């Protein structure tokens, strides 16, 4: 019998010497990385220029597994790091890959300001509705009436509707998928690379270990079935209508796709107008 060649096209984007990864069985983070790798293949961009910046948490570990220039920063600060990286070296395609707690609690201020400035960075937010790395505490995304380790009698903190918040802050591209929608997610990620400005994709992901288990919602497979059952694709939906609840509809799709001058263009145009020939444009900085 002839041996079939075994080749997974996404391997080139992974640090295979770091596999196996730390994510739990049924977790959606690895699934999203697979979609991301396919997006890199399909986007037909120079992957050498794609830099990944992560914060802290389960999703923060993505930076450690992708075979790109990758920066695992401090908790919540992936976006300001990415801002400096992009402004100093505009040829880079800078992708922030982090979790909901990292991006919207401790890093929430940085996120809204980067969206306001419309810095040309792409943000992938894995939303597992909980702080997973630290053991399942309530996050600013946790829906009401959910058992967490810090709300053992059920959550009552109102939660953020991420697409609504990010659109209001100024993002040019906002989409949401779940770990079930691997192809749609890959297409969205590919499309994100064509956008100039602050782009945001929320990826709803199971945390079977801490969220689904505590709430008697089954395992990873059960969560996939749940996503399939309750997700509705509504491209162009108004973001104020897409808030998540514990068991209600998950609205997915592309919600926002608009044009706004990005931070680099705004800075350039203003300085040209004010300084004329005295303005010295910055290409990629390079210390000799």
């Amino acid at each position, binding site marked *: 019998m002839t041996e079939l060649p075994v080749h997974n096209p996404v391997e080139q984007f992974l640090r295979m010497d770091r596999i196996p990864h730390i994510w739990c069985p049924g977790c959606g983070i690895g699934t999203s990385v697979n979609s991301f790798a396919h997006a890199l293949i399909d986007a037909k961009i120079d992957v050498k220029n794609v830099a990944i910046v992560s914060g802290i948490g389960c999703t923060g570990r993505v930076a450690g597994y992708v075979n790109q220039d990758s*920066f695992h*920063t401090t908790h919540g600060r992936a976006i300001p790091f990415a*801002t400096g990286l992009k402004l100093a070296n505009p040829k880079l395609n800078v992708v922030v890959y982090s979790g909901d707690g990292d991006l919207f609690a401790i890093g929430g201020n940085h996120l809204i300001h980067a969206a306001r400035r419309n810095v040309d960075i792409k943000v992938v937010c894995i939303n597992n509705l909980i702080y997973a790395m630290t053991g399942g505490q309530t996050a600013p995304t946790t829906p009401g009436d959910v058992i967490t380790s810090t709300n053992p009698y059920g959550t009552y903190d109102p939660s953020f509707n991420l697409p609504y918040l990010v659109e209001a802050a100024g993002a040019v591209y906002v989409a949401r998928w779940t770990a079930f929608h691997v192809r749609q997610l890959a297409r969205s990620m590919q499309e994100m690379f064509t956008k100039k400005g602050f782009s945001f994709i929320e990826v709803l992901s199971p945390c079977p270990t801490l969220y689904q288990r505590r709430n008697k919602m089954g395992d990873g497979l059960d969560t996939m079935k749940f996503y399939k059952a309750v997700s509705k694709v509504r491209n162009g939906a108004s973001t104020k209508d897409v808030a998540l609840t514990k068991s209600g509809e998950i609205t997915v799709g592309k919600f926002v796709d608009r044009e706004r001058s990005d931070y680099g263009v705004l800075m350039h145009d203003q300085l040209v107008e004010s300084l004329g020939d005295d303005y010295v444009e910055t290409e990629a900085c390079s210390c000799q």
Partner: protein
Amino acid sequence: MHAEAAGVLTGTHFLDGDHACCEGALAAGARFAAGYPITPSTEVVERFAARVPTVGGTFIQMEDELAASITIQGAVWGGAKAFTVTSGPGFSLMMEHIGYALMTETPCVFVDVQRGGPSTGLPTLPAQSDMMQVRWGSHGDYEVIALCPNSPQECFDLTITAFNYAEKYRCPVFVMMDEVVGHMTEKVVIPPPNQIEVEPRRYTTVPPGEFRAFEPREDLVPDMPRTGEGYAVHVTGLTHDERGYPDMRPVVQDKLVRRLQEKIQKNADKIILYEADQIEGAEVVVVSYGITSRVAQRAIEIARQKGVKVGKFRLITAWPFPEKKIAEIASKVKAFVVAELNLGQMVREVERAAAGKALVRLVGHAGGSVHHPEDILQAIMEVAR
């Protein structure tokens, strides 16, 4: 190598320390700054914001100091020389990213124009009360390099030194100014570019694939890769091996954290800067730094007129602390008088280095003004008795 001409404002100027610091950064090759407004330091970045678009570079005002102190590190990995500027309350917020710069060996400069604290304290008035915070404020074991200018001229000169040390040792370097030095205006001479030595970034010549990002050279400092050139480098604040990969084993932690300390400790003799005057034969040596050294100068002169043999020892690098030099002096003098605009910080280092061989007398001050020379003089006279 020499400074890039575009950033150097050669000539004789009348500048305050904050503006001189900005010119030092530009001369050193800084082309990126991120900051958040805070008195009495803001003038540094205000000038940078006006100057850098004509030189080729970027200033961005961030949403807070947490952001500013990590944005500069993104810029460094993007290829720029970068710095941020703040004062006490902002410096407190930056502690997280001082640790990140130390752990990731990111060359960058932090300028702290010190004001009175704790908390909001004295926004427009001087202190030197962040001297221990800069050494110990972030968690974990580490060594830092901190420089203390005592004039606008030194704000220019030592900011260049700070950038050079940052590149040479791949660590954050601190320019510990104070409100008076920041706001006083004096003559500042900026030399022509070919007389300004600038340390280039230590980029690796090893090709991608063979390069190990955190493998040190013989001086314990690793070379840097260029981002976007296929190195696929991984940078993390987690304990990491020489590839940069997270590794939580105690043996890896031990090797990494010791090296981060030793790259400063073993090069301390090359890093340490001080000014010593009439130490030989002195009965009393006055130790001071920053603006306080100029007040102490007056006290020293009066004491000498009164016949006391007084030496002067001015810390230019507070960290690493010149402990060998202080120990050597301690065995020859009766006493040290340590004057500083706090209630006793660097004096602890003097006591530690003196190890009981000489009396150590603090002339503290809670901040809000400089010392009165009389207070330092009185301490000199008392210990000389």
